[in-house]
C-alpha cells in the first residue's frame, strides 16, 4: 500500500486517476481503517486529503456556507455561526460515534462511505446541500441526494472526490432538525433517521419543506412528496398526517436484527413528525 498526502486538488486527482489498482481517499479514516482491518478493502493507494486547505476550512460567503469535506465533527461543533444557522445539521454530524470518533470523522467520509444509515446525509438533504466534486475533468456540482446510489456505491467517477459542501444561509423563518432512532442513547447506528428543513412566512405558514430519510432504503432518500404535504399548513395535524403517510410510502427498508421492515416504516413516520415539530419551533424563533 502506498500513502500520499498531496497539498492540492489537482495533485490528489492526478494520483487517484493514475492508480491502476484499488485507490481510496482518506479523510478521518473511521470507516476506511475499519474496512482495511476487516479485509473488506485492501487499497494499493491511499490519498490523504487533509493537507488540502480548501477541504479543511469552513467559510461563510454571501451565497452560504462552504464546508470543507475533510473538516472533523469536533471542528464543526465549534463553529458557532454554522450552528446558529443549521443546528439540525450540526447535531446530526455530532451524533456520529464517540468523542474520539468526532475528533476525526468528516462529512465527506460520512457521505462517500455510502451507508444508507449515515446520520449526516438526511440532515444535508434537509438543508438543501450541494457538493462540489473535483476530478480529472475539473469541478462539478451535485445535489447531495444524488451522490449515494446504493450501499458502498456513489456517483463519483474514477479520480473524483468531494471537496466541499455548500449550504445556503438560513433566512428568517427557516429551521431544521435531525432525529434518529437507536436502541440506546449513544454509539449506535441509526435504525431510522429523519432530517427536516422548512421555511415559514411571517404568519407561520410553511412555504417550503425538505425531508431526508436514512436507513429505510438502499440509500438515503429525499422524499419530495412528504415535504410538499406540509406546504401551506401551520403544521396542523392533517398536514402532519399527510406528511407521515408520504414518508411511510417512500420507505423500502430491510429486515435485520436492529429493526424489522414493519417497525422501521412505523418509526420513520414518528421520527419525521417529531423532527418536523422541532424544525417548526426553530423556524418560528
Amino acid at each position, binding site marked *: *500500500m*502506498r*500513502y500520499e*498526502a498531496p497539498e492540492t486538488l489537482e495533485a490528489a486527482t492526478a494520483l487517484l486517476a493514475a492508480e491502476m489498482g484499488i485507490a481510496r481517499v*482518506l479523510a*478521518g*479514516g*473511521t470507516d476506511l*481503517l*475499519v474496512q*482495511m*482491518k*476487516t479485509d473488506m478493502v485492501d487499497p494499493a493507494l*491511499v490519498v*490523504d486529503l*487533509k493537507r488540502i486547505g480548501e477541504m479543511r476550512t469552513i467559510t461563510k460567503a454571501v451565497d452560504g456556507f462552504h464546508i470543507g469535506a475533510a473538516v*472533523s465533527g*469536533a471542528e464543526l461543533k465549534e463553529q458557532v455561526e454554522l450552528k446558529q444557522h443549521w443546528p439540525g445539521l450540526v447535531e446530526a454530524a455530532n451524533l456520529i*460515534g*464517540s*468523542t*474520539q*470518533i468526532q*475528533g*476525526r470523522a468528516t462529512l465527506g467520509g460520512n457521505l462517500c462511505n455510502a451507508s444508507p444509515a449515515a446520520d449526516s446525509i438526511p440532515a444535508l438533504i434537509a438543508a438543501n446541500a450541494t457538493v462540489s466534486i473535483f476530478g480529472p475533468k475539473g469541478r462539478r456540482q451535485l445535489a447531495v441526494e444524488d451522490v449515494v446510489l446504493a450501499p458502498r456505491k456513489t456517483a463519483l467517477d474514477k479520480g473524483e472526490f468531494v471537496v466541499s459542501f455548500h449550504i445556503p444561509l438560513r433566512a428568517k423563518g427557516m429551521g431544521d432538525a435531525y432525529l434518529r432512532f437507536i436502541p440506546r*442513547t*449513544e*454509539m449506535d447506528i441509526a435504525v431510522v433517521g429523519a432530517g427536516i428543513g422548512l421555511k415559514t412566512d411571517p404568519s407561520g405558514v410553511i412555504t417550503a419543506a425538505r425531508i431526508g430519510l436514512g436507513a429505510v432504503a438502499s440509500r438515503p432518500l429525499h422524499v419530495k412528496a412528504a415535504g410538499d404535504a406540509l406546504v401551506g399548513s401551520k403544521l396542523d395535524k392533517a398536514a402532519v398526517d399527510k406528511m407521515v403517510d408520504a414518508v411511510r410510502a417512500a420507505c423500502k427498508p430491510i429486515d435485520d436484527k436492529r429493526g424489522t421492515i414493519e417497525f422501521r416504516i412505523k418509526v420513520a413516520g414518528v421520527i419525521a413528525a417529531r423532527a418536523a415539530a422541532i424544525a417548526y419551533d426553530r423556524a418560528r424563533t
Partner: protein
Amino acid sequence: MAKHHVSFTINGDPTEILCETHATLLDVLRDELELTGTKEGCSTGDCGACSVTVDGRLVCSCLMLGVEANGKAIGTVEGLAKGDKLHVLQEKFLEHHALQCGICTPGFLVASKALLEKNPDPTETEVRYWLAGNLCRCTGYDKIVRAVMDAATVMRGA
C-alpha cells in the same frame, strides 16, 4: 514494504521513526516506541482504550495511520504524571477505586484530561456523554465518573 520517515512530538518530546504504511498510530506507539500505556481493546474504534490526543484533539489511535502523525503533537497517558508526581486525575482514580483490571484506565485518563482542558466544570451528564466512547467491563462507570468530577473540582482550585 515501504517505510516512511515520520517526525512528531510525543508528550512534548521530538521523535522520529520509520513507519510501515499500514501501521496504525497505536502500533507505532506500542511496538516501535514501546509506549505501552496506550492499550488495544477492539482495534475498531469502539472501546476507547487506545485514546490519545493529536494536536489537542481526542482520537482513537487504532483508527489513524502512523504516517498521518507527521508534524503532529501526540499526547499519551505517559504524559500525565510528572516524574513520580501523579496527575490529579490519576490520584482521584486511585482514591475513588475507579479501576479494577485497569485495561480501560489509560484511555479514560487521556479522555478525561481532554475533557477538563476544554470544559473545567462539566456536569455529570457532560462527563458521561464525553466518555461514552470509553468502555469499561469492570467498574460500572460510576466510580470513574465520580473520580473525574472530583478531579475537576480540585483542578479548578475550588
